């Protein structure tokens, strides 16, 4: 069985969770399920991946990739000479679409599997040229990214036509499935839910010395650290967390909120923290990778994901992997698979403050939450997601045969 997969990024050249999910899924599909995958990327780079073939749609060699805060705004590619090249999302998509439609002329495959709206126009183009089943994998939709119903209408148009023409849609949560039905009028039986997963064995290898030694010293002095990690964008709901945190600090002055990530809300959040007079309790770190990224989770006593709308929310799983109990918004997909978590409506500032205060002042609650969520975490595996997707492929291959 050969799958042509249309993706947007793969680690280490990724700007967010989409690349990580694509990578892990393909790895399990290829190594466990014996699926032959050709993965098309919008850039050319050395990925060190041997379990599938990676084909660049556009011959741009890059060393790094960066995304501005808003998911669909623009990308910047840093090439091997260190030059930064900005491409608007629209240009980028057009180039990708054109390249993919030429590419498939000389390629044979059984199913086209496309990840998120950026690749959907290309998927539709392929549909015009080849009679193959189209499966769309939805990691987020426009109303998630914009934080409300009034997203970019150009993007909504693409999502609407692609989802209605696709043969099957894979949603990363029931939450997302319902939103797809609501926003785009897609019939329920066309959408299957395959939750994102995580590979717990990847989390064992971390060392004890934390790069955030300043925070560690504060903790020694009796402070608690609440972490939030993600893009600083409207979708993530951080202003509400700051408002809640003000109430927390009034009760527990020895509390620090540690915000890790970059995005267009960065200045706004700093100003809000100052305005709320909790500037001395809020610390910002920029976008981080590697040990700096892992240590941010590890230093926290509680991880908070206050998203306004979160199709899945892989950071919450990573937090558990790095020994932090989680408080997540009810408007998230990950809430469906981690029962042992605190859950709050993203707008309920008082309750958010109440639950944060409870965890940082009660070690028993902290440990119970962490130990039980850890047990759920240990049972997760991308292999299960790959098996589900293999089952969906088989429905179509079966039909063809």
């Amino acid at each position, binding site marked *: 069985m050969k799958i042509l997969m249309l993706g947007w990024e793969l680690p280490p050249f990724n700007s967010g969770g989409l690349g990580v999910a694509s990578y892990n899924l393909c790895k399990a599909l290829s190594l466990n399920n014996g699926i032959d995958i050709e993965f098309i990327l919008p850039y050319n780079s050395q990925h060190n991946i041997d379990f599938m073939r990676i084909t660049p749609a556009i011959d741009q060699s890059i060393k790094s990739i960066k995304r501005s805060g808003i998911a669909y705004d623009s990308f910047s590619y840093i090439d091997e000479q260190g030059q930064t090249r900005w491409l608007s999302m629209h240009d980028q998509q057009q180039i990708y679409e054109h390249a993919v439609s030429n590419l498939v002329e000389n390629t044979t495959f059984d199913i086209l599997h496309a990840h998120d709206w950026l690749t959907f126009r290309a998927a539709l183009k392929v549909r015009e040229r080849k009679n193959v089943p189209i499966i769309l994998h939805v990691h987020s939709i426009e109303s998630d990214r914009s934080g409300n119903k009034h997203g970019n209408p150009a993007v909504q148009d693409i999502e609407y036509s692609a989802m209605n023409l696709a043969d099957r849609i894979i949603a990363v949560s029931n939450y997302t499935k319902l939103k797809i039905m609501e926003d785009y009028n897609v019939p329920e039986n066309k959408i299957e839910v395959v939750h994102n997963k995580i590979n717990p064995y990847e989390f064992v290898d971390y060392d004890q010395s934390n790069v955030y030694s300043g925070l560690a010293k504060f903790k020694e002095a009796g402070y608690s650290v609440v972490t939030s990690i993600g893009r600083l964008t409207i979708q993530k709901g951080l202003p509400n967390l700051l408002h809640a945190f003000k109430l927390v600090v009034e009760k527990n002055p020895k509390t620090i909120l540690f915000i890790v990530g970059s995005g267009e809300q960065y200045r706004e959040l700093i100003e809000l923290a100052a305005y709320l007079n909790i500037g001395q309790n809020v610390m910002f770190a920029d976008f981080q990778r590697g040990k700096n990224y892992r240590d941010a989770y590890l230093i926290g006593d509680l991880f908070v994901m206050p998203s306004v709308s979160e199709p899945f929310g892989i950071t919450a799983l990573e937090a558990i992997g790095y020994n932090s109990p989680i408080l997540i918004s009810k408007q998230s997909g990950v809430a469906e698979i981690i*029962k042992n978590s605190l859950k709050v409506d993203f707008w309920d500032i*008082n309750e958010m403050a*109440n639950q944060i205060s*409870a965890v940082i002042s009660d070690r028993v609650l902290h440990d*119970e*939450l962490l130990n039980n969520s850890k047990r759920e975490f240990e049972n997760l595996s991308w292999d299960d997601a790959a098996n589900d997707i293999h089952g969906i492929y088989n429905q179509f291959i079966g039909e063809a045969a």
Partner: protein
Amino acid sequence: MNQKSILLYLHVHQPYRIKHFTVFDVGNDHNYFNSTMDNDTNNEKIIYKVAEKSYLPTNQRLIQLLNDNPNFKLSLSITGTVLEQLEKWHQPALKSFQELVATNRVEIVAETYYHSLAFFYSIKEFEKQVEKHRQIIERLFNQTPKVFRNTELAYNNELAAWAESKGYTGILAEGWDKVLGWRSPNFVYRPVNTNRIKLFLKNYKLSDDIAFRFGDQNWSEWPLTADKFAHWLSEDTNATNFDLFMDYETFGEHQWDESGIFDFLSHLPSEWLKTPGHDFKTISEAIETFDTKDEIDMPYTVTWADTERDLSAWLGNSMQVNAITNLYNLEQTVLSTNNEAIIDDWRKLQTSDHFYYMCTKWFNDGDIHAYFSPYDNPYEAYINFINSFYDLKLRLIELGYSV
């Protein structure tokens, strides 16, 4: 002629559920149980719902059955916390219970007023609550209980010895296979190291056929009719007593009217009584009638809950143990205040339901459907409890106590 009795025993209880009580309420609001929200922590609303859906229609049937069948009898346990709430919010339901008891064919069983696990934390406090329960039963029903049942049927040898020393003639427990071995629950037993008190063991298979499986259309015996059930009982030719112990709310609440549960209840007495030698007995009558068959040794606590039949649903995780231990640690200080409101709140917080709501084992087993709670998850239950606890502590501090 083979003498066989059904011992029907129904347990009536409602806790005072803790409202959404946040860290911002601590020190500002001393009312933990007065939710006015339209949700499942609104105790008044729940009492009204349960009274209308379960207590009134069930008692109406029971009265009818008592009138129609002179040989129909049953036993009840009713906690102080539910009686208090009925007195405040639903007098007709309370009256209907009083009517039942006035037939002299309904026996009330002793227990703790607050449906607590005090026996395992403070015998002194436990005895006070049993005494308080005796008083309210005497006041409302003009009856003095002679048979004892502990909260959740939590039983061990020590409890039996305690009950005998206090003059109780009978005690109830779960007929758990691991304790009974080859023995049948359908006889009267003697607790080890006691002389007079008699032990009655719940036949959980027959009881659960009614309480849990009755409405389950996937059950191979569905639909369960009164004559089929009476026939099963007749087949045990040696038995003397079938101890059918269950929550009163089985009728109309756990099993809805639509399931046919009330028809079953209405027909069971006539189906059972039509065979000579069959009757219904209260526990005290069974104590007088039947001799003990054997001795039962239960060194470890056995309850009527879950597949484990232990206290793990209440005391199985560290939140539960922390909450209950902290609460009982306040005993001396709370009592020394002589402040009725503080003592009463402290005791209402002892109700076992609060700890049950904090249970995480079903979350971990993936059997989330077993989690009955007014809260979204066990952690929220714990947060509401512990915040109430801190407020109670603050009230003690404000009175000048150091806790």
